[in-house]
């Protein structure tokens, strides 16, 4: 898939990249990070104009994200019909209010596997749009300019950057899952001690 898309990006240029990152923003599982890093290398080779490519890519991906947010926003009623006022839902809303900004920001570029659930959750919990947009935009700027910039810096050796960043995202996700699990087990132990005391 990524090889096919790379061929098409060198054939059709920046407009295709904008379309791909827009669809990626909607939540389609496309290898967008690979393309962004490669686009940086292509910009260095003079195949893509880096400034317009970067600017319109940011606009495209934020537009895609905003549509995903609105899907969550308007699906709220359906979600509430199912979970309304259940302790689990209230807890999820509370957690999201606490961790929302960090999860919105980091899921844009580092842990992209959870980007869509986080965006939908933002809409469903009616996370304030302006705040959401600020963190989303900041994360996407890091993604496009940071990752694309690394592609530009490393030129034809961009695959090394892609391999490192792809695996680093997986490692970060693993660390977060592990910490959440250990924290939960720790809380149970504390409760048990309090009950037995």
């Amino acid at each position, binding site marked *: 898939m990524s090889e096919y898309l790379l061929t098409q990006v060198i054939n059709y240029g920046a407009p295709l990249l904008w379309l791909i990152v827009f669809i990626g923003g909607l939540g389609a599982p496309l290898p967008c990070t690979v393309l962004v890093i490669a686009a940086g290398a292509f910009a260095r080779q003079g195949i893509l104009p880096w400034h317009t490519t970067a600017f319109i890519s940011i606009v495209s991906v934020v537009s895609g994200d905003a549509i995903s947010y609105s899907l969550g926003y308007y699906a709220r009623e359906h979600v509430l019909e199912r979970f309304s006022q259940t302790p689990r839902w209230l807890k999820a809303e509370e957690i999201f209010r606490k961790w929302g900004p960090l999860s919105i920001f980091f899921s844009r570029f580092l842990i992209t596997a959870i980007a869509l659930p986080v965006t939908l959750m933002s809409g469903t919990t009616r996370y304030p749009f302006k705040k959401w947009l600020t963190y989303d935009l900041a994360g996407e700027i890091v993604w496009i300019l940071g990752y694309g910039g690394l592609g530009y810096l490393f030129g*034809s050796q961009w695959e090394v950057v892609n391999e490192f960043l792809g695996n680093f995202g997986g490692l970060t996700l693993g660390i977060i899952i592990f910490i959440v699990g250990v924290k939960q087990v720790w809380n149970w132990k504390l409760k048990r001690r309090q009950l037995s005391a």
Partner: protein
Amino acid sequence: MSPHVNPKHRALIFTLTILGCLFILFFGLRVFHAYKKFQGHPPMPPSPTGEVETDVEQIRDWMTIPFISRMYGVPEKILFDAIGISPEGNHKKSIEELDEEYFPEADGYIIERVKAAILAHQSPPMPAAPLTPVPPLTPDSPAVP
């Protein structure tokens, strides 16, 4: 564990924790290997003569002939001539597609031909001037005019 904990919830948390460990192990090893590779490839300095690549090992199956031509500064015609294919209708096809269409029985034929054509076209490096040994200066050495 506490008797108040839902067994399903408990199983989910244990599964997540184990999954987290597996992720850390799997991606940690991959990050380590990628980092070692990463260290071996410092960022490329900007080239004053334009971005012309010289390492033919960077050629991949997804690249097209016009892209390779631009990347290596070799005219398209030379590359198409080297693989014996007409440029017409083949500009947007990747090496993999060209291989499947024209040389399905010879795997990797085009990429090897393209590499050879680029190496033949790029000017060979200038031979280094032979080093002439210079005798060390001693107080008895005659003064150089």
